[in-house]
């Protein structure tokens, strides 16, 4: 009988250890995925306006991607003299994105602005502004 008690205790102990092991694995998985959430957060793009000019109602602007994230023109918005925002992709169809390190000359036709003083761009948290020359 004493032997059966020991064996039963061994079985119960083993079962408890197994449960603890499973629970620990589950908690470890949760902790790992929580740390992955923190790593998932992307950096803001670094968009820079180099210069801008206006000629006969057409706005010329040179800009560069100074960061390491691809910038989509669908998510890039210009504001001229603090006015209503315009989406870059509505005025530029030659390319859809600005790659890291790429510098682009963009021509904005028909914005309705004449003799503007300042242009500002915002894209997914990245911002830049420049005065017209």
């Amino acid at each position, binding site marked *: *009988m*004493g032997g*059966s*008690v020991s064996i*039963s*205790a061994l079985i*119960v102990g083993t*079962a*408890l250890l197994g*449960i*603890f092991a499973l*629970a620990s694995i*589950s*908690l470890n998985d*949760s*902790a790992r*995925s*929580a740390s992955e*959430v*923190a790593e*998932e*957060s992307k950096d*803001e793009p670094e968009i820079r306006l180099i210069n801008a000019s206006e000629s006969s109602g057409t706005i010329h602007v040179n800009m560069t991607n100074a960061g390491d994230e691809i910038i*989509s023109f*669908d*998510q890039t*918005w210009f*504001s001229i*003299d*603090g006015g*209503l*925002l315009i*989406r870059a992709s509505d005025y530029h169809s030659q390319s859809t994105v600005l790659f890291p390190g790429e510098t682009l000359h963009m021509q904005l036709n028909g914005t309705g602005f004449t003799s503007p003083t*300042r242009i*500002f761009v*915002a894209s*997914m*948290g990245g*911002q830049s*502004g420049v005065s017209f020359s």
Partner: protein
Amino acid sequence: MADGGASELIMLISGLLVAGIVTTLLIASWGGLANSVDTVHNQAEADSKTKAALASDPMQVSWDQASCNLSLHIQNTGTLELLDGEIGIIANGTASTVNQTRLLGNSSVWTSGEVLELQVCPSSVTLSVGQEITVTIVVRSEHYQGISGQYSFSEVIRIG
């Protein structure tokens, strides 16, 4: 001998009962702990996917004192859809009323990359051109795994 066998049997049954009760309690407590970790994890994930940023030129923000109208543009910079009806604005330390919202572009929902135009009234505030104030904006996302994400940011703007 028979007495010894009976008492050992009682001890065995008692031991098994105690072990069973302890196991049930441990499983219940571990289950609760795992649930709370899961909830915290889901909230953190929803919050990390919820982001917004000012898209207006902070140097030239339009303000109309007579109609109490501050125009702001907020871009959804996260990955979850934001709720345009659940925005909190504090302008110059004053809780503000959102009078009107409008999505720019052709989108009907405030998805990633889209810009929402806000007409805000910070009540009982007098602002002048050139004045710099701090605005704090709080946004909320759609439900993600049953939990809504939240994000807030502050930015200094100049009244233009």
